[in-house]
């Protein structure tokens, strides 16, 4: 029995509007310390069952830490609420975080984590033959994909892999009596970690600027190389999405003066099975397993990197590496190894995921990944360039991503690329500008990968077109964003003031709550 009451709407339901009416979760959740409930416990701990150890004065803790006290449901509920206030790859059309290759991370691969959870990195090789086989096979597959001789899976991220490569470059030159080589050459549109890691290792960094065509200036390289050159560290395709067709000449120029060529393959997704690092003569290179090989980004890690090297650099690889001897996998440290990069053998959860992902694709699948990633990118570029005020410097086709510019729109409206990004989130999608310094003015960088459908790309382009129109009609409105998010516009100024900044709750209490009612 139903009492219908007054009718206020009709069937059929009207079609949806052109753009999604998104709103991010807004739980208005307190800081966890405000949820404390003295005496409550989230979990019980096994009691000793053996005599208590008394600690001398000064060695034992004098006062208990002021951690929150909460029952289990309340801890869980707090964190699940916070989890909802995020926009992961699984929820949005994540093409806006260019250079980061935000592709789908298959759920099946996450289920394998339980199978390795309790393995210890110091277990005897005999007891971990399964996981060592995964390491060995993934190394073999990445060696085939890059053409390099051997691959270390130890680095914890792309930047850690770049640093490991620099460490090998340094060790190689020192072993050859070439320790005086103190310059590393990179390009403006290579990933900035190449310059940063080289500097940490004590190198002077020489950057090649793009020429009028958007390619790194090869004449500048010619002028830069010399007896002080330790290495060229270069991304290709660069972060503009442009493949440097003279890459072989770049490598040759560096080799001629006795330097090494190191390939940042962070942008490899569009060239899998198309071209390989070794084919252009590179001596070292690295992949980001959390980019090209699908492991999840996890709020910013754990990630994983893989360093591939040519034959002459194999003795310098981080140790240990997995070798097969008489059908058994064993751990061995290369003779001139740069040593350990991190505890254990690598970020094993991501090694397992990357292995499983390649095993679900095969050679044909990887080639299809590359081709569709590139097709998606050029399709999206076609759509974006139809938006008045958007442009892509250098009129050429791109590989897997494009660095665009809102310069025209920004000059007309005063709305900046960052602000368009915040407004984009109101429609449930991510958006990113680019690394600093901005070489392309008012930049944004889109990388659609193979994971997104044509409809997804159309929706994303429609969102940006809509925001560009808003910027023209009412720039104030765009600048006032966000409107549909967990919180409203944040005033960041206290974060730069030592008297006000609060990097922890205890600092916040001390500076802002103490002595105030």
């Amino acid at each position, binding site marked *: 029995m139903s009492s219908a009451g007054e009718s206020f709407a009709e069937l059929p339901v009207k079609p949806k509007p052109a753009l999604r009416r998104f709103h991010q979760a807004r739980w208005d959740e307190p800081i966890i310390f405000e949820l404390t409930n003295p005496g409550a416990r989230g979990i019980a701990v096994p009691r000793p069952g053996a005599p208590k150890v008394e600690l001398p004065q000064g060695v034992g803790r004098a006062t208990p830490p002021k951690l929150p006290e909460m029952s289990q449901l309340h801890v869980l509920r707090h964190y699940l609420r916070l989890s909802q206030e995020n926009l992961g790859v699984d929820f949005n059309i994540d093409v806006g975080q260019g250079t980061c290759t935000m592709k789908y991370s298959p759920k099946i691969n996450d289920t394998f984590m339980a199978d390795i959870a309790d393995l210890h990195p110091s277990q005897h090789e005999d007891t971990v033959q399964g996981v060592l086989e995964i390491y060995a096979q993934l190394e073999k597959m990445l060696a085939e994909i890059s053409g390099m001789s051997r691959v270390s899976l130890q680095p914890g991220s792309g930047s850690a892999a770049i640093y490991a490569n620099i460490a090998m470059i340094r060790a190689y030159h020192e072993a050859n009596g070439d320790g005086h080589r103190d310059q590393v050459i990179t390009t*403006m549109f290579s990933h900035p970690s190449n*310059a940063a890691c080289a*500097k940490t290792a004590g190198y002077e960094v020489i950057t090649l600027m793009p020429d009028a*065509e958007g390619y790194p*200036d090869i004449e*500048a390289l010619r002028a830069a190389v010399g007896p002080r050159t330790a290495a060229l560290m270069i991304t290709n395709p660069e972060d503009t999405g442009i493949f440097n067709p003279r890459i072989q000449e770049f490598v040759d120029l560096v080799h001629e003066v006795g330097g090494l060529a190191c390939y940042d393959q962070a942008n490899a997704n569009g060239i899998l099975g198309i071209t390989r690092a070794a084919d252009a003569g590179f001596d070292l290179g690295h992949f980001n397993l959390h980019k090209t090989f699908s492991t999840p980004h996890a709020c910013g890690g754990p990630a994983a990197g893989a360093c591939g090297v040519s034959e002459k650099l194999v003795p310098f690889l981080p140790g240990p590496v997995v070798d097969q001897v008489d059908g058994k996998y064993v751990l061995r440290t290369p003779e001139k190894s740069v040593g350990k990069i991190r505890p254990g053998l690598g970020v094993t959860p991501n090694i397992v995921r990357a292995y499983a992902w390649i095993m679900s694709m095969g050679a044909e699948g990887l080639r299809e990944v590359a081709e569709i990633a590139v097709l998606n990118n050029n399709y999206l570029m076609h759509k974006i360039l139809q938006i008045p005020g958007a442009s892509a410097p250098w009129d050429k086709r791109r590989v897997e991503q494009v660095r665009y510019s809102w310069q025209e729109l920004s000059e007309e409206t*005063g709305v900046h690329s960052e602000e368009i*990004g915040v407004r984009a989130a109101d429609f449930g999608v991510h958006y990113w*500008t680019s690394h600093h310094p901005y070489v392309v003015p008012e930049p944004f960088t889109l990388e659609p990968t193979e994971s997104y459908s044509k409809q997804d790309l159309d929706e994303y382009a429609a969102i940006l077109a809509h925001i560009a129109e808003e910027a023209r009609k009412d720039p104030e409105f765009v600048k006032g964003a966000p409107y549909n998010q967990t919180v409203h516009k944040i005033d*960041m100024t206290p974060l730069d003031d030592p008297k006000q900044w609060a990097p922890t709750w205890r600092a916040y209490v001390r500076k802002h709550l103490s002595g105030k009612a």
Partner: protein
Amino acid sequence: MFRVGLVVNPVAGLGGAVGLKGSDGAEVQREALARGAVPRAGDRAAQAVRTLLARRPDARVVTVAGPMGADSAGDTPELVRLTPTPGPQESSAADTRAAVAALAAAGVELLLFAGGDGTARDVLDAVRELGDQAPPVLGIPAGVKVYSGCFATSPATAGFVAAGHRGDTAEAEVVDLDEELYRRGVVTPRLYGTLRVPAARTALSGRKAGSSGTAPATVEGIAREVVARMKPDIRYILGPGATTLAVGRELGLATTLLGVDVVQDGVLVAADVTEAELAGFAEGAVVVLSVIGGQGFVLGRGNQQISPRVLAGTGGLIVLATQQKLAALNGRPLLADSGDPDTDRRLSGHVQVITGHHESAFYRISPASEEYSE
């Protein structure tokens, strides 16, 4: 209450639309109007003011009457009196200077001015006279030539930056071109000095976990690198500019912003030298130059003291620029215009440009005559 001064050069930009490449001088202004030019500086200033007031309701515009301010200043500006009252369609450098002085005396916290590089020079002159009493300033781009660093990228942006001003400032260069030469196709930027502008920082930019942390290069970083590379018993000729001034600061020496200085072994050998004096120091010296203006000139613009004769004797060249400045050239070369084509050709080719501490780039220098030989 946030009191913001406004000065409009109502004739700024007049010449541009009618192909006059500038609006300096009453004659050019009359010519521009005769050719049908419509004043637009007032509209551009009004746009900046609208944005400012929308973003910062506690802001109050303080200005002078008529087209030099009040016409663009919204509903209820606070007016200061200026004598003599300027004519309706004319402005002169003196009027701009007088207005700046009057608004400073009225105690504004920030001064917006609408115009171009010529207006910026007038403001600079006024600010110099005011000394410590001068407020920070910010240019609303409304002129034909807008090469100076003291301008926002658009009127709207000027409004946003003004609204966000909380007192922090930075130095920005004022450069201008000789309009007479500019009309003949010769781009001759000259550095006139620096103005104190709001330190604009975009609250959102770059705060990403995914991005790597290469520190943006700073003028101080460049200066430290130059100093680290200086060798004993070698003379260094420091050209004009904020970057070379930072080199002097790093050395603890009172070098000049606009002049050419000579240093050696941590000592200021000579400051603000003439060409003739410089010739005496040139033998074996290393010349340190920064990039003047947006066109990439390293020689022949504001540093004519470093003449072909001087350059003939020197032993090396160091160019200073941030990566951003090089990037802004969009692949175009740095330019040398020493006045002697042979010298320019000798200097051309790829040079190492110091971009920060332990950082450099290799970049092409071309003779200006070859780049502008249409």
